[in-house]
């Protein structure tokens, strides 16, 4: 795999919710090579470590990538401060993304919080053959609802406090919809992914999960983003940046 590093123009910048930013970046080489579930590693100016941000949209014709991220710590706050028209220092596309199985039945796409953005290209791919179940803290944290609905997929929104959609966790509608599904594709906080994987496993439905870990190089050299995985009965540390971020849920040692 060829990696690209360069400074790329921030074309569009929007705020989707409190602390949630939506960037469109002109980066033709990166966009051309990118696939669903991969990420880019962006350097906030003046920082030592890059911030891995998952890809929310790939437009190979326009040569753009869309990222949606939460400004939470110093680094992501700095990124959020980037003015439209400025350049972003990007390494990408990185990681092993979602395996886009050609399935006949229903695909369930589910996740929560800031794990939702990388699921959008999956909904676009599977369209009306997909059921999308998204979880958020509350009504004001709901993002990308119209984008998901525009894909033709059935969209179910859940909130922790019941202020919007279904009151409760994504695993409740998941358990109702999973019967007959061909696959589950997910991204979100670890406890949520663990619960989603458990439901998928109980129903013998294959499940892919996109994990998150603090990263260094992003390319698989520095070995800091370790996660315990089990493959062919052997336990080892995999690395979220290169072996992942997307793993078969059965390989992950929760």
């Amino acid at each position: 795999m060829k990696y690209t590093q360069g400074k790329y123009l921030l074309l569009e910048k929007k705020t989707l919710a409190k602390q949630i930013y939506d960037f469109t970046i002109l980066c033709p080489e990166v966009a051309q090579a990118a696939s669903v579930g991969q990420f880019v590693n962006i350097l906030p100016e003046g920082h030592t470590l890059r911030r891995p941000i998952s890809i929310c949209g790939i437009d190979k014709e326009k040569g753009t990538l869309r990222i949606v991220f939460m400004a939470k710590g110093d680094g992501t706050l700095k990124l959020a401060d980037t003015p439209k028209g400025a350049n972003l220092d990007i390494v990408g596309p990185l990681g092993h993304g979602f395996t886009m199985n050609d399935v006949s039945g229903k695909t369930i796409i589910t996740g929560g919080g800031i794990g939702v953005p990388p699921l959008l290209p999956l909904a676009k791919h599977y369209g009306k053959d997909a059921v999308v179940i998204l979880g958020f803290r509350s009504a004001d944290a709901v993002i990308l609802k119209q984008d998901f609905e525009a894909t033709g997929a059935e969209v179910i929104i859940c909130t922790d406090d019941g202020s919007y959609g279904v009151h409760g966790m994504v695993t409740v509608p998941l358990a109702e919809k999973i019967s007959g599904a061909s696959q589950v594709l997910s991204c979100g906080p670890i406890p949520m992914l663990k619960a989603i994987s458990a439901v998928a496993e109980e129903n013998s439905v294959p499940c892919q999960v996109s994990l998150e870990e603090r990263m260094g190089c992003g390319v698989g050299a520095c070995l800091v983003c370790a996660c315990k995985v089990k493959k062919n009965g052997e336990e080892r540390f995999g690395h979220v940046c290169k072996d992942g971020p997307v793993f078969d849920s059965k390989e992950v040692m929760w």
Partner: protein
Amino acid sequence: MADLSVNVAGIDFKNPVIPASGVFGYGREYEEFYPLSKLGGISTKGTTGQMRTGNLAPRIAETPMGMLNSVGLQNPGIDRFISHELPNLMQKDTVIIANIAGSTPEECAEVASKLDETDVHMIELNISCPNVKQGGAAFGVSCEGASAVTKIVRNATKKPLIVKLSPNVTDIASIAKAVEAEGADSVSLINTILGMRIDINTGRPVLRNNCGGMSGPAVFPVAVRMVWQVANAVKIPVIGMGGISSGRDAIEMMMAGASAVQVGAAIITDPFAPVKIIEEMNQFLDEKGISSVKDIIGSVKPW
């Protein structure tokens, strides 16, 4: 175009810039960015006698102008390094330095003796890891510990031996002299400085291992000082590292007495850092009308 070549312990380097052990793996990932032949050398990921799985995550945290890491020497073990990584590296037209470590002096010696039978150009012995036979204190924090491990490894190999020094000591020059006396051909410094961060919202250390090694631009002045002290204390060549992130930093480190430099954290910030540093060094030398980088080694004029 200035002459960037240097010689360290009898080994010729086309330029003095070497990715430091740990950040660069075995070069495979960075070969996707640029040919490895552009580099002066490569110090490979620290290799131990047996496979090590490393520490639990999080293994990294950012700090002001730097970072902390605690990977825990994750590596596939010396046999796999020799069979699966070294043959590929030896074809890359750059100096290959095998970084080695162990929990006991005997483990370090066993790893070195296995490398002695390979084509690897140099061995770099990490003496900053805990010695399990001595209650877990690092070999490198006392002259006695550093001498003992250097002696046994020296006897296990005829390859040029670099001993990588820990900065977590009172007098690094005395440690350097101790390993020189046991036959080290070169010393490299500084390894990371022990550090810690705490998440004040959870009360938990940011690293799962509680403490880790600090590196990056924040440690650069400490590294320059230690390289200067060591270069003044020993006759063997010194390889300087610690927070180098530009050609100017590399020149400064060589003025302090380094014959070559290693680059670590800067590669995590910018994968092209070593290549840019080489270009910037050349540019600086040309601007100053200095024909060879060797002329700046130890050229600082202290007050």
